[in-house]
């Protein structure tokens, strides 16, 4: 990029994104619910069919959205915890944690069946603070 003046020193480097990683960002169009974009990243074009990718992300989204839905069991669990002064949380696992664990298992499953054979690897979004789903391109 050209400019008429040299930029301040701290901005003299242009940073390129990593060539072997694709990122699936969060989709906030439905609010703050946990949902990732189902759009196929450019780096994965040709590596994985779009329908497969959409289905995979869709399934992960379903589990994540279920984690944030207020169901009767979730309310009961919270009420019970409140009555114990929240000491119950020290020994029990919340519904949300169970959902995130099932997402981890699903990601493992997809790595074995869908991504592994295509030399891709999906990183569990919990490892990335639920910011992005990172997909590593194992071989160029």
């Amino acid at each position, binding site marked *: *990029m050209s*400019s*008429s*003046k040299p*930029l*301040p020193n701290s*901005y*003299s*480097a*242009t*940073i*390129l*994104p*990593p*060539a*072997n*990683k694709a990122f699936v*960002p*969060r989709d*906030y*169009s*439905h*609010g*703050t619910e946990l949902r990732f974009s189902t759009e196929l990243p450019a780096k994965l074009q040709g590596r994985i069919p779009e329908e497969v990718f959409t289905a995979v992300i869709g399934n992960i989204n379903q589990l994540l959205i279920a984690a944030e839905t*207020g169901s009767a069991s*979730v*309310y009961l669990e*919270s*009420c019970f915890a*409140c009555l114990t*002064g*929240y*000491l119950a*949380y020290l020994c029990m696992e*919340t519904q*949300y*944690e169970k959902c*995130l664990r099932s997402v*981890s298992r699903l*990601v*493992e499953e997809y*790595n*074995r069946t869908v991504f*592994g054979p295509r*030399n891709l*690897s*999906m*990183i*569990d979004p*919990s*490892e*990335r*603070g*639920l*910011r*992005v789903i*990172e997909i*590593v391109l*194992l*071989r160029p």
Partner: protein
Amino acid sequence: MPKRWEVYPGKSQVLFSGRCISAKNLSVFYLTLALIVISSCLFLAFDCRLLAVTLSPSVPVLAAVQFIFVLCCLLRTTFSDPGIIPRGTPDEAAWIESQLEGPQVDRDGNYRPPVRLKDVQISGRVFKLKYCFTCKLWRPPRASHCSTCDNCVDRFDHHCPWVGNCVGRRNYRYFYLFLISLSVYCLYVMVFGIVNLVLLSNMRKDFLMAMKESPTSVLTILVAFFSIWSVVGLGGFHTMLICRETSTNEDIKGSFNQRRHPDLINPFDQGNGLANCCYVLFGPVTPSLLNFREDEIGLGSSISLVTNNGRNGTASAAAASTAVTATPAVRYSNLTRNNNDATSNSVGHVNNSVQVISESLPAQLPGDGNDVIVKNGNGTPADGVISGGTDTVGAQNSNTQSASSVHCIV
């Protein structure tokens, strides 16, 4: 291999080896704790002696139960993760920042900072998402960056010095219940303190004599009386906020102020005050995303989760990793690192190549794309010196490939 809490870059205080997190400055929290504990002890030790005998032994029992509940809520609010969003990895940051319109200098010579806003439409209303340069992430709607703790916090309410922590999504219910329970408890202590004085004065036939005989009652009544105004007031304010599904931060900014701007609808409002209350107070509890107790397996240098034993991906990744750790204080813009790790078992390759080039060079560098060549500002290559210390490649198996050249300046 360090744990994640050991490399945590924010300004919050991590306690008990990553099990708790709070603000760095807890002096006002200690004051709050002292006021509650000392008043309660005085009340239970002195006032309840007469009350238990004259009225009922359930009076001190109820007081004790309330005291414990108030303490539990307070300690939960102070020491739990308020909903901190972990910082983005360098790779994520590179990806996002490459998409942002970069800093530019226009014809007049004015410097324009990089554009870091994007619009997202939620239920018919446009929200502006900001890119947080400190945390290297797109801030979700309702999240905000706390300058005291230097973190982005989800559904940020406010930073409360009395409680010694930010109040955000994860600990808002504890904060609110602390306020409500403390209001009730203050009222309880004040009422029964007065009852105690009245009973004593009836026995002694002199109110002043009763006060002299039980000075701690006077003290607890005064503390409770002055606390009630602020605690009940704040509790009422937060009740109103909860019913409208707004946070203090949004209320201050007027994000959902429909009186001024009728199109500023609140898409998070479920329409019914009771439904909002139930969701905020008893809805799903987000676990802490910081995962402090886990091993830090590198700044976004990811290990494939393809394993042959079906264990939880996190555990197997940590176990099989050839860890590359970096000093947490290193800022992304100065650090480049390339590591070519391979392990002999079924865990796959990872290349963590981040290319940094100076402005005057062409975008494509020669070579296989794995080498990182760092240039100084004037275009001459810097000597490849590994600094910043902790570039350990541990637990390598015998048939690993040799690591490619690592050039790194801090």
